[in-house]
């Protein structure tokens, strides 16, 4: 790898030993440094005393499940990318996982190449985000203001932390103000994935952003949908 991601530290949280060994082997071969946790408790302990660049997280885990672990991690570090890897493929699980703060979701069984691409995409996004926040780091619209550097959002009613992925989606929309941005474009430029994966992941993030910043999320005024085209950001309300 020549993109500076070599040596990134990844924590694999997986209680299926054989799968964990296979993942560890492949990711080590890609140049990453891997640590393994076999249950939710161990994952939280390891996360508390070590710094990681990415977490690969199973959902059905002993002691604390993946959603609880994701909550715990998000509380401590909103920036760290989390990839949920699980056999539970129902739409509700996916939404629940993304709501708990996961940035991406992959169902078992998966293709090795796709997993490696996603991991790389997530790590790249993290690096890229650091670069661009150095240039411009705030945005304001309506009564909302967002500090992209600190990942803190201030709305008329409250102040809270955004996850890296949320901040990146919002940032992309704000920077392309007044132009329709397609789901595919968001996947390519924000998720850094060039595959035909489900665009529902994008929709889930838009729902979350609307919940945070729209006065009425079911009738959005800032992040509007354009039928069969994508989304458009506009901060000039008529």
């Amino acid at each position, binding site marked *: 790898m020549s993109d500076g991601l070599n040596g990134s530290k990844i924590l694999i949280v997986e209680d*299926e030993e*054989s799968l964990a060994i296979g993942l560890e*082997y*492949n990711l080590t071969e890609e140049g990453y440094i891997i640590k393994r946790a076999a249950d939710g408790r161990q994952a939280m302990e390891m996360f508390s005393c070590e710094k990681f660049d990415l977490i690969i997280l199973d959902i059905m885990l*002993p002691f604390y*499940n993946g959603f609880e672990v994701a909550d715990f991690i998000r509380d401590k570090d909103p920036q760290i990318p989390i990839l949920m890897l699980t056999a*539970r493929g*129902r739409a509700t699980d996916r939404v629940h996982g993304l709501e708990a703060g996961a940035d991406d979701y992959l169902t078992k069984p*998966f293709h*090795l190449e796709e997993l490696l691409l996603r991991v790389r995409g997530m790590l790249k996004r993290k690096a890229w985000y650091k670069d661009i926040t150095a240039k411009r780091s705030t945005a304001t619209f309506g009564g909302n203001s967002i500090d992209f550097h600190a990942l803190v959002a201030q709305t008329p009613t409250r102040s809270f932390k955004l996850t890296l992925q949320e901040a990146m989606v919002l940032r992309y929309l704000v920077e392309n103000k007044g132009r329709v941005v397609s789901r595919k474009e968001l996947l390519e430029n924000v998720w850094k994935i060039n595959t035909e994966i489900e665009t529902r992941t994008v929709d889930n993030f838009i729902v979350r952003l609307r919940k945070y910043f729209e006065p009425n999320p079911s009738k959005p005024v800032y992040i509007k949908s354009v039928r069969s085209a994508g989304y458009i950001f506009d901060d000039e309300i008529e």
Partner: protein
Amino acid sequence: MKMKRKSTIFHPLFIFIISQLAWLSLLGLWIYWFVSNYIIFNQVGNRLAPQMVPKATNIFALVLGVCLLLFLLLGMYLIFSFLNRQRQITQLYDNFIANITHELKSPLASIQLYLETLNTREVPLQRRQEFLNLMLQDANRLQNLINNILQISGLQKKINVYHFSIYNADALISQIIKETEQKFKLSAGKVRITGAANKSIVADVNALKMVFDNLVDNALKYSMNEHPITVHLAAHVQNVVVEIIDRGIGIELNDQKKIFQKFQRVYYSYSPNVKGTGLGLYLAKEIVKYHGGKISVYSRGKNTGTTFRVEFPVYHAKKKGYIQYLLKLTQKNKEAESEEFEDE
């Protein structure tokens, strides 16, 4: 939140109570109306035409009315409990489908990962061997799961064909446990066999393998510690007793009956394992029952370990008729099979 409120209002128990209250109040109102009218009718009737007013109340109508009422109440209660049971089964079944999906997908994901790894990378020989072994383990797990499902489906339709023979319990159980150890690739000394049961029992080897595979697998899954699992054999006059004893997380008293029911799984926050289908112990119970034996569980609760006790009737000492029937059935099956073979 809205959804939650809606589901509370439409809960069958709530509907049942409300409907009972509604029709009982209606009945009360009718009785009140009837009695008050009856009094008026009596007073007016006495004054105008005393010969028309009946002297005694109609006991027959009263008793019949009360009986019909009770019958209605009972009927409604039965329908309610039947529907409620059906609802519980549907819920358990949904859980089962989610669990089984997980149990099928996890080993499959692992096998696929290793195949793609071997296909795309130059894996050193030693690691290659390790990966092949892991794949075999996963394939084994899939096979066990599928066998369990097929066995249960066969049990329900009563189409499983068993081959019963007479065995020395000591030799048979020791052999089965050894095979289980090999299958799960357990380190030496992880399972310890104690005691002796030098009596004859009638058994189907393959079916008993499934029973002990499931029981040993359970003991391993729910023990966090390194303590060995003990298989204790004992022979009484009428029964051969096999106990599988672990020092794991135990089973709370309230849950001990539940665990043998189909699809039923018990969740504890302190459990080191979250996997399973809720079929293993149900299957074990049904197979042991078919052998004329019984299975039970003992545990004093959290972190006190668990003992599963399996009893088989001693040949020629207990349930003679039933055991003879099993042997005859096997003979018949064998004859049918050889006839089929000859036909081919």
